[in-house]
């Protein structure tokens, strides 16, 4: 950076700092001391997941956003996805009502089940192996009030965590009892749409088992939502090839070929969940359980293609139980050992009811009025991770981390077809998966601080599982403290995603087995950033470039390929839309991102922030035109401002997030003459929160949210592709709930 640019930057931040400077207090006889430097230190983020050790975010080997518990409350955040959208840098979500897709820095792969982002809760992996699924919406089942902070770590993170960490790592850290002491109750309502109840407690108590008090935090939560009742345009789907008559799209509906109407019953969530964390002596136990039952009223390309319209009995349920026991020990003045044993269970149920004869033909019997596609799956896994940290000089200047993580996995799934009315099976089970698998990962990380202003982080991890040869994920990062408050960082990292077992093992009449083996997806990334702090203000600017290869997609057979498959006896003559998972494409991605945030006022009562990401991501496939990624936002960001009125008066906050225009999910294979882009979205939330006067321990939170766009990026309905049988030349896009309000009360009975 030239001296001129540096002077400009410092002047810019200096101007901001002057606006934020604390004025001298007239009642202080001593010369007042500006607290801006101290405020800057107190705004420093301490992150854990970037290097598996506590370090300041400024010199962590990645770009990190920390979302605090206070931010979550202040800005009316209700889910992990909202925290990412309204408050983080570089990551973004897109809700299809079926799943919440997550992307970062311009890359998003719709309906990937979140399997390109690693989600951790207190360091415990949430991604399951059947689909690679991690849930970022309401189904994440993490009580918001228990969250201490969320670390959003951008860029490849497989160097320490293995598979799935291609876009980054999100680590949710829950509160300790000292920060959540007492008994707590929360009731929150979105009038006419949802309600949520939570009870929880945090307590320190003495036991004979350890010298230090045990630290317990626990919460039980229930969330229920119904609707809103969106209106879906009536669209003509055509003639049912199996019956020769127009399609029927509901169990008791007419055979008139029209799909659509008001969806009163088929959009809901039922979510009981619980979370417990107990720290006792050298041990820490985390237990998480949930049952996420949800339904969406429409059919889409990715999920439930043949589903009846607005059918409440077509729904999906994820149940999970995760137990994680960690032991930390210091073996000597330089050596610490962390041992972690974990066991997880995940069950999946998906019932899809279809009343079209063509679909029931595929299910095995057209005599059924309505046939049910019943997907069942389960994953069980257990593992042990051992990690040693060697602080050779006992000054954190030369630290070696060595770890090994071994896991046993059992994965089962099947799809059955039933007559909905009688329960009679229509054919044998398909898509049978019954696998036992072992994976092992070993990692090594070296941090070196040769001087106080220079640090290096080098590492690599080797992962091996039964389905492919070993994968190595390296990372190299360096940070230079250029001058007071200034830090220049650069890094190179690689990551991978093991194909899910649904991709490698699922076979049915419409899904061919993988030819040969599926290779892991890979990403390589370089990034550079410069951060400047001036008191409580922080400015960051970064650039990035990544290369993705061997992206796994479900390739739909061409006519020639279908003929060959028929010749080989793999498919029958009259099946269409047969797919096969292959390593199909590459993604080329580059862009820039920036942050400006800080606090101001005599008591730091004004909080503000701005995050912007601008990226280009292009999908490459042999023989196919290079195109932008479907659904992936290329320009997105957020801004926020909040003011804490002194005393028992409320906090007023405004947060907004923006997603630019983006291709819809069927932009490249739908053949639509128009309407292939979803409109830009600007969603703004106003929040008022604070203690209720005269009622000790009771606080409130009111939110109102308005979204400018009423349509999302997903094609819904019977007309997934343009067939020219109706005048409709553009697809019907997912309707969005533009205006939402919520009222929440929290009662804290403190010890």
């Amino acid at each position: 950076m030239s001296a001129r640019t540096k002077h400009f930057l410092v002047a810019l931040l200096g101007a901001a700092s002057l606006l934020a400077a604390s004025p001298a207090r007239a009642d202080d006889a001593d010369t007042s001391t500006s607290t801006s430097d101290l405020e800057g230190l107190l705004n420093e983020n301490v992150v854990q997941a970037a290097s598996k050790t506590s370090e300041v975010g400024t010199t962590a080997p990645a770009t990190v956003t920390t979302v605090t518990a206070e931010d979550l409350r202040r800005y009316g955040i209700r889910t992990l996805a909202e925290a990412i959208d309204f408050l983080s840098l570089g990551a973004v979500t897109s809700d299809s009502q079926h799943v919440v897709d997550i992307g970062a820095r311009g890359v998003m792969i719709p309906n990937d089940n979140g399997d390109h982002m690693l989600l951790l809760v207190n360091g415990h992996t949430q991604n399951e192996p059947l689909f690679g699924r991690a849930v970022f919406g309401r189904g994440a089942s993490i009580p918001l009030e228990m969250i201490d902070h969320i670390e959003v770590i951008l860029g490849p993170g497989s160097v320490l965590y293995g598979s799935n960490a291609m876009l980054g790592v999100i680590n949710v850290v829950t509160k300790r009892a000292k920060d959540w002491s007492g008994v707590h109750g929360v009731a929150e309502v979105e009038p006419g749409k949802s309600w949520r109840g939570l009870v929880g407690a945090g307590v320190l108590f003495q036991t004979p088992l350890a010298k230090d008090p045990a630290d317990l935090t626990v919460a039980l939560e229930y969330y229920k939502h119904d609707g809103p009742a969106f209106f879906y345009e009536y669209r003509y789907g055509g003639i049912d090839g199996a019956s020769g008559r127009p399609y029927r799209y509901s169990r008791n509906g007419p055979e008139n070929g029209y799909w659509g109407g008001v969806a009163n019953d088929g959009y809901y969530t039922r979510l009981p969940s619980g979370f417990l964390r107990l720290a006792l002596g050298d041990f820490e136990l985390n237990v998480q359980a949930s049952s996420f039952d949800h339904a969406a009223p429409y059919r889409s390309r990715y999920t439930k293609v043949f589903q009846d319209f607005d059918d409440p009995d077509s729904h999906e349920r994820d149940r999970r139980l995760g137990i994680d026991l960690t032991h930390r020990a210091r073996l000597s003045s330089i050596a610490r050992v962390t041992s972690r044993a974990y066991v997880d269970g995940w069950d999946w149920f998906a019932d899809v009811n279809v009343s079209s004869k063509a679909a029931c033909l595929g299910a095995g019997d057209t005599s059924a009025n309505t046939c049910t596609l019943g997907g069942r799956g389960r994953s069980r896994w257990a593992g042990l991770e051992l990690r040693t940290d060697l602080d050779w000089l006992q000054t954190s200047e030369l630290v070696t981390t060595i770890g090994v993580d071994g896991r046993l996995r059992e994965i089962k799934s099947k799809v059955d077809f039933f007559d909905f009315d009688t329960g009679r099976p229509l054919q044998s089970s398909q898509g049978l998966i019954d696998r036992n698998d072992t994976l092992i990962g070993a990692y090594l990380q070296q941090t070196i601080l040769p001087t106080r202003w220079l640090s290096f982080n080098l590492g690599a991890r080797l992962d091996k599982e039964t389905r492919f040869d070993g994968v190595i994920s390296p990372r190299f990062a360096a940070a230079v403290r250029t001058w007071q408050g200034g830090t220049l960082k650069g890094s190179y990292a690689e990551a991978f995603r093991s194909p899910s077992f649904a991709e490698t093992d699922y076979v049915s009449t419409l899904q061919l087995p993988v030819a040969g083996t599926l290779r892991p997806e890979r990403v390589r990334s370089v990034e550079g950033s410069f951060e400047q702090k001036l008191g409580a203000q922080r400015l960051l600017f970064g650039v990035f470039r990544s290369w993705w290869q061997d992206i796994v997609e479900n390739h739909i057979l061409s006519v020639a390929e279908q003929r060959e498959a028929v010749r080989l006896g793999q498919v029958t003559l009259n099946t269409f839309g047969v797919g096969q998972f292959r390593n199909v494409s590459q993604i080329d991605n580059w862009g820039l991102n920036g942050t400006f945030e800080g606090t101001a006022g005599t008591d730091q009562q004004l909080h503000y922030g701005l995050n912007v990401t601008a990226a280009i991501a292009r999908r490459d496939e042999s023989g196919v035109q290079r195109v932008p990624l479907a659904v992936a936002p290329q320009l997105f960001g957020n801004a926020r401002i909040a003011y804490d009125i002194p005393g028992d008066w409320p906090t007023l906050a405004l947060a907004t997030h923006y997603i630019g225009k983006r291709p819809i999910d069927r932009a490249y294979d739908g053949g639509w003459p128009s309407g292939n882009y979803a409109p830009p979205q600007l969603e703004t939330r106003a929040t008022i929160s604070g203690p209720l006067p005269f009622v000790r321990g009771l606080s409130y939170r009111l939110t109102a949210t308005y979204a400018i766009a009423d349509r999302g990026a997903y094609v819904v309905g019977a007309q997934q592709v343009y067939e020219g049988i109706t005048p409709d030349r553009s697809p019907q896009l997912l309707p969005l709930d533009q205006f939402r309000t919520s009222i929440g009360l929290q009662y804290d009975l403190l010890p």
Partner: protein
Amino acid sequence: MSVVACVLLAPRKSLGDEVAVPVALQAELLAKVASYDRNLATRAGDRVHVLIVVNAKNDASNSFAKHITSALGGVDKIGGLPHDETTAPFGGAKALAETCRERRIAIVYLAPGLADEVPGIRSALDGVNVLSVAADAAEVAKGIVLGFDLVSGKPKIVVHLGQAKRQEVSFKAELLKLAKVLE
């Protein structure tokens, strides 16, 4: 399995002896916080002497001492004054108080591993002109004047105001507004 056995059977020290706020950040915070002590210059004279007290039998304690010594070595001034650091094993609360008086210690930094000694240290330091700092913020509630906690991934200053008065530490209002204050 043998690795697991070695880990479980090896000598262990309590998890509670590990600090939450990175040591280098603690050093930077101390250097800034000290400048808000109105009595620092009077107490220290022209140089701030920092005494780091360790539990000699505790590896975490010894390791912390080396770490904070190195970190403070990278700090130019504490409270605007030059400084030096020495480490000493804990030899009793009264001996500690005597050392602080004799050697004009301005800041005494308690390394982890001395939790059981804090009540005695608190009593012994009553009336002694010294700023006591705990590596573990939990000790502040027991009577150490200053500590650094971690809340929502950010450091938080914790001050025991009552003990500060008894040890002739007078923090300015600007600091107390940024801190969690215990009486």
